[in-house]
């Protein structure tokens, strides 16, 4: 009897470390080879003088970092990376919260509206950015046309949205916010629907109005989900080079360059792999911080 029970238990508990290891090892190896491997290579290159078309390389110590830190375009890039990331997150979180509240109610056509709202996120960003490039065109911009039609500007005198540094920065910011808003909205919407309906009802009976219910009950309750949306948003924007590359290619005069786009410009287009690698390593600290907070969210979710 006792033997029989023990046997059943070993089958039923169903953990099988050996088989388990055999099943996850290929995936883990692949990821190690193609994520961890290149990551360490990047560190390695950053301390070398590797160039495209030259298989030889030598250790040069901190030389790459020294010259990068001296270059003005790097300073602009790092500043832009933070401006784009932080400002677009602020826009996105405010907008996404409002939109999520509006989408929470059921109404006719909500499915279709949701599809339209999601387009910026689900369509390939390179293509969305091209759409914006046309909208912000130097001559045929529809925005300019409207402003001229409203007599804000004289014909042929409208601003060059992508041609003047400040406007170009604003434009990139706009496109980043546009792209991320749907993503944050659906995440927040998922958070909202997970709150039992009687919580806001209890708040209503307790005498709270709309704003108090939102700011003192619902949004604080969504804190974990809000941090998920923010953390992903930070990563997606901070590490993105597509938007800048397509809209302005870093211009005019490197004024919209970000860390990733500068790394591409120097490392691939300029053939200076070492410099490119060194620049992209500046992404790492923020990534580590975000990973830390992500782990905290995951851990909290596990505990509760």
């Amino acid at each position, binding site marked *: 009897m006792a033997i029989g029970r023990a046997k059943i238990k070993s089958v039923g508990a169903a953990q099988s470390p050996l088989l388990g290891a055999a099943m996850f090892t290929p995936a883990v190896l692949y990821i190690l080879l193609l994520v961890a491997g290149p990551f360490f290579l990047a560190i390695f290159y950053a301390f070398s003088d590797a160039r495209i078309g030259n298989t030889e390389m030598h250790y040069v110590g901190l030389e790459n970092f020294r010259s990068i830190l001296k270059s003005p375009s790097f300073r602009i890039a790092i500043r832009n990376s933070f401006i784009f990331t932080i400002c677009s997150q602020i826009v996105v979180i405010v907008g996404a919260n409002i939109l999520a509240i509006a989408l929470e109610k059921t109404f006719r056509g909500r499915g279709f509206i949701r599809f339209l709202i999601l387009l910026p996120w689900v369509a390939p960003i390179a293509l969305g950015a091209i759409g914006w490039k046309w909208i912000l065109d130097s001559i045929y911009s529809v925005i300019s046309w409207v402003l001229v039609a409203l007599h804000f500007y004289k014909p042929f005198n409208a601003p060059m949205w992508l041609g003047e540094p400040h406007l170009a920065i604003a434009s990139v910011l706009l496109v980043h916010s546009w792209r991320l808003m749907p993503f944050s909205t659906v995440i927040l919407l998922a958070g909202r629907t997970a709150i*039992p309906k*009687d919580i806001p009802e209890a708040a209503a*009976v*307790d*005498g709270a109005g709309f704003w108090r219910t939102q700011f*003192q009950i619902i949004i604080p309750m969504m804190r974990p989900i809000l941090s998920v949306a923010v953390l992903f948003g930070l990563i997606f924007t901070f590490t993105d080079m597509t938007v800048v590359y397509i809209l302005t290619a870093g211009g005019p005069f490197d004024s919209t360059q970000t860390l990733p786009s500068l790394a591409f410009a120097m490392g691939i287009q300029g053939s200076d792999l070492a410099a490119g690698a060194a620049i992209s390593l500046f992404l790492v600290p923020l990534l580590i911080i975000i990973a830390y907070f992500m782990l905290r969210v995951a851990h909290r979710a596990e505990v509760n």
Partner: protein
Amino acid sequence: MAVVETRSLTKVFKEGELGAVNSVNLETREGEFLVFLGPSGSGKTTLLRMIAGLETPTSGEILIGGRVVNELSPRDRRIAMVFQSYALYPHLSVYKNIAFPLKAQKVKKDLHKQKVEWAASLLGIGALLDRKPRELSGGERQRVALARAIVREPAVFLLDEPLSNLDAKLRASAREELERFHRRVGTTTIYVTHDQVEAMAMGDRVLVLNKGVVHQLGTPTEVYDNPADTFVATFLGSPPMNLAELSDVIVGFRPEHFRPVSSVNGEAVAFRFKVENIEYLGSEWIVSGTPASGKLGGQKVFSRLNSAQDLSLGGTYDFAVPQRELKFFDRSTEKRVEPKVVSWQ
């Protein structure tokens, strides 16, 4: 002036369908404990939520303190509600949960502490004020929910099955505590349940609902001893009242009144009763079987006895119901009617 009153209150969720609540008229009495009782889906919650202002009536009026409140939002109705799930705010401490209604109603800040402590001590949760809801047991949560409800001294309490999340043992003690609490604060209370034991034990009056229609409103003894119709008669009591269709009336009698002839005094109706099942429930016995002849012949009938040791399965015995314990209902309307002379053969 009644604290809560409804006039032909109706709620239809989907047009063309039967209403979840149909033309309900009721009037609470000052300080009473009124129970809404009915099977699942009978519209109890819907009725309560309309009184709270969480659901908009399709038609009819709601009055609180003599004033029509249909157009008022929940916050302006001077009500407090305890939800089935308690709906405590998970991110706030017990103290802040209880203080929330005060904040929301813009009660002066310096009064908060005093009021929260008063409510907490009334419910014996003074020691829990710093905890978060998830660190509380089911019973403690219920008390916090009650404290949150009482703290702003509402005109009426609305409670929707507040005990259904507790296990059987806790439920009994929580019920007692709720009764004591009501006696102490004396606030008019409406309490929703589908548990007839709870309803009978706690209610000053019971409103019996089915399919959105009020079947009876009366004290527990009234609804049990003088049910207004066959629905009330069979919904209350376990096992339910025995019903028999005799020519143009339905006659009913409670299982506890259907006993061996030897223990029945006075004028009575007697049957030959074949025992088919005997259940021992500790303090009592439930005997079921079929009368051997007459109009009841072949129909299942229950008897509740203090002792069934003299009876054996398959045996046939002489049972009887006192004449005065018979209830009569109209066959078509199923409503209670005056006693009649009927033929049992």
